[in-house]
């Protein structure tokens, strides 16, 4: 494992032409999907060069998504943490309530460019499913969302939202009945209907070119942070960036524009679930390199290469894999990956709710939960930006169950 010497210039150009981030990434897919990936790669390469494409994308972000999202100073939270100045990048204020919409807007424009009318997606917590159903409604496309049967039960409200938006939600009963199996089923659908179907992947995962495309559509988060810091503080870079990591798209979006700013520390917070000795979803912290869903990355697996079930209180982090670019950044030592447990995440929810009047998604709460530790490390002068990736409405059922249990126990 190499670590980056922050005293020397750090250049960053990844992935390579075949979609490799160092040893990670690539396209490990059945042959049937190779032409589809090649068509997507070409369509994106052309779109990337086309100013009209980016104008459409920017207009949608502005007028439909509601960007730029604010960079909110969190005075009471900062005070609670002993003075470290915390700024919140408010992706929770995006249309549909999370950063996911940045990517679905970009990919639906690509799908339209490619003449596709049938969109498939997979979802865990439902945020990506809702964002996909939303843009499909907006663009008049057929939308099918695969969702683990267990997640369908856990996230009733998001299922209803998707259905209200005109999407068909297909519960997946195979395997673990969660995101991993929903993804298998989405890929199986794609294999079967590849001629007319666009697979709208929701994170920086999957075969090349998806991790690159999703990162590029999410980098708007970091780009705006840079500009907003300059306007609000007169400095373009913070001392540290913090984001939660499941698949890792909100983190990549925040980190990517700062990767070559060697003074910026970066922290990705994974879900430690019941603790790293128990059931968890801390792929980078505890996994080993492996191949799942089209890419080589870190993976929770047993000694025989069978994929393990992940666990997190947040259905959105409950995935045994992680984006290959994160695997690369971990090995490079450019990003530090830490963990927060279910219990810590719930404390994170309450901390932000009570100090700032913002109820974060359980995913985001993992990033919040890491702040007290970071404050001790960085001290009172540091400027820290936390990606507030989504709002907590969807998790109120889970949060309520926990709080009620806690109250009962205290009686």
């Amino acid at each position, binding site marked *: 494992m190499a670590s980056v010497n922050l005293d020397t210039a750090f250049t960053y150009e990844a992935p390579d032409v075949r979609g490799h981030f160092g040893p990670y990434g*690539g396209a490990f897919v*059945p*042959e049937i999907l190779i032409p589809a990936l090649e068509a997507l790669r070409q369509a994106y390469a052309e779109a990337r060069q086309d100013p009209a494409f980016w104008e459409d994308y920017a207009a949608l972000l502005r007028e439909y998504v509601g960007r730029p999202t604010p960079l909110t100073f969190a005075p009471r939270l900062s005070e609670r943490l002993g003075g470290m100045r915390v700024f919140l990048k408010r992706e929770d204020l995006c249309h549909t309530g999370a950063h996911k919409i940045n990517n679905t807007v970009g990919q639906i424009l690509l799908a339209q460019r490619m003449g596709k009318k049938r969109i498939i997606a997979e979802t865990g917590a439902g945020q990506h499913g809702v964002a996909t159903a939303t843009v499909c409604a907006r663009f008049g496309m057929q939308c099918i969302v695969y969702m683990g049967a267990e997640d369908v039960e856990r996230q009733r409200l998001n299922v209803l939202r998707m259905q209200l938006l005109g999407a068909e939600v297909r519960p997946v009963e195979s*395997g673990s009945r969660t995101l991993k199996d929903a993804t298998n089923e989405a890929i199986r659908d794609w294999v*079967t209907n590849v001629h007319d179907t666009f697979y709208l992947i929701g994170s920086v995962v999957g075969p090349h070119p998806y991790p690159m495309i999703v990162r590029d559509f999410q980098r708007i988060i970091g780009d705006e942070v840079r500009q907003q810091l300059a306007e609000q503080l007169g400095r373009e870079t913070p001392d540290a960036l913090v984001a939660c990591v499941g698949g890792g798209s909100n983190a990549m979006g925040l980190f990517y524009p700062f990767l070559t700013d060697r003074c910026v520390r970066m922290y990705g917070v994974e879900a430690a679930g019941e603790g790293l000795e128990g059931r968890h979803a801390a792929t980078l912290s505890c996994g080993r390199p492996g191949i799942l869903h*089209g890419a080589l990355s870190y993976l929770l697996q047993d000694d025989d*290469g069978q*994929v393990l079930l992940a666990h997190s209180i947040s259905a959105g982090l409950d995935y045994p894999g992680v984006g290959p670019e994160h695997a690369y950044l971990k090995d490079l030592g450019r990003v530090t990956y830490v963990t927060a447990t279910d219990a810590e995440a719930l404390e994170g929810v309450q901390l932000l709710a009570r100090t700032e009047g913002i109820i974060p998604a359980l995913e985001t709460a993992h990033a919040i939960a890491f702040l007290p530790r970071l404050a001790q490390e960085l001290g009172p002068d540091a400027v820290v930006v936390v990606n507030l990736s989504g709002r907590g409405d969807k998790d109120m059922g889970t949060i309520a169950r926990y709080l009620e249990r806690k109250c009962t126990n205290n009686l």
Partner: protein
Amino acid sequence: MITRLQSMFATLRARREKAMGLFLTGGFPDPESTLELLKVIDEAGADFIELGMPFSDPLAEGVPIQRASERALRHGIRLVDVLHMAEAFRSRSQTPLLLMGYVNPVYRYGMQAFCRDAAQAGVDGLILADLPPEESEALAEAAQEAGLAMVYLIAPNTPSERIQQIDALATGFVYAVSITGLTGSTLQSHEAIEAYLARARQLVTRNPLLVGFGIRSHEDALRLGRHTDGFIVGSALIRLVERLWDDAGLSLVDRLEAVQRFVHELKYGTSVPAS
């Protein structure tokens, strides 16, 4: 050195006969029955056998092979057990045997170690459903060193130039997936499939060309086999085995005889009389 696979294809070509490959998941329907089944399948007319390496996330498989994989894993089957099954099979048969599965368990095992151990167990080649040639350089090298054939797949939507490239890289045969779909799918539009196979026949010149996915009967095999050197049956066998083994009223002999009849009929169109 003439490999078992090459000599099998040469023999069949001389007899103007199509090669029939059968797929069975290692450890399915249970660890003990796999070996019995391999023996019966071999004797009933299989020209080569694909032994499946169970995987938790078999994303190119339809429901029958998914279920078979899950069932084998529930029995605690590990990759090393599949290698032992291959070894046991090899100790009493010279029929070519390939391992088929997904890349991660092989990657975890270590590519060189895996190829070496597979070759030592008497395996002749590898087919990995999620390993296109672009990503297979390291494994192909290890396979070559160990003397294992590498089979690559083509699909109806594979461009002609790519089919030629795949033919140039493959060392056992080229596996033509009959349809864009999953294993065990229903064959549709025979004209389109035949046009694709006829095109592939023109392009695959260095390797034998075999067709698989969706073949359930001798009639399917005859029709699709016309343009190829042979055919492969997986899900139809898995479905039959699942049904037979879930029927508590049948004895092991009944079950094995039913499999024998099915396999014989697939290849020859006539059933062997029950003994």
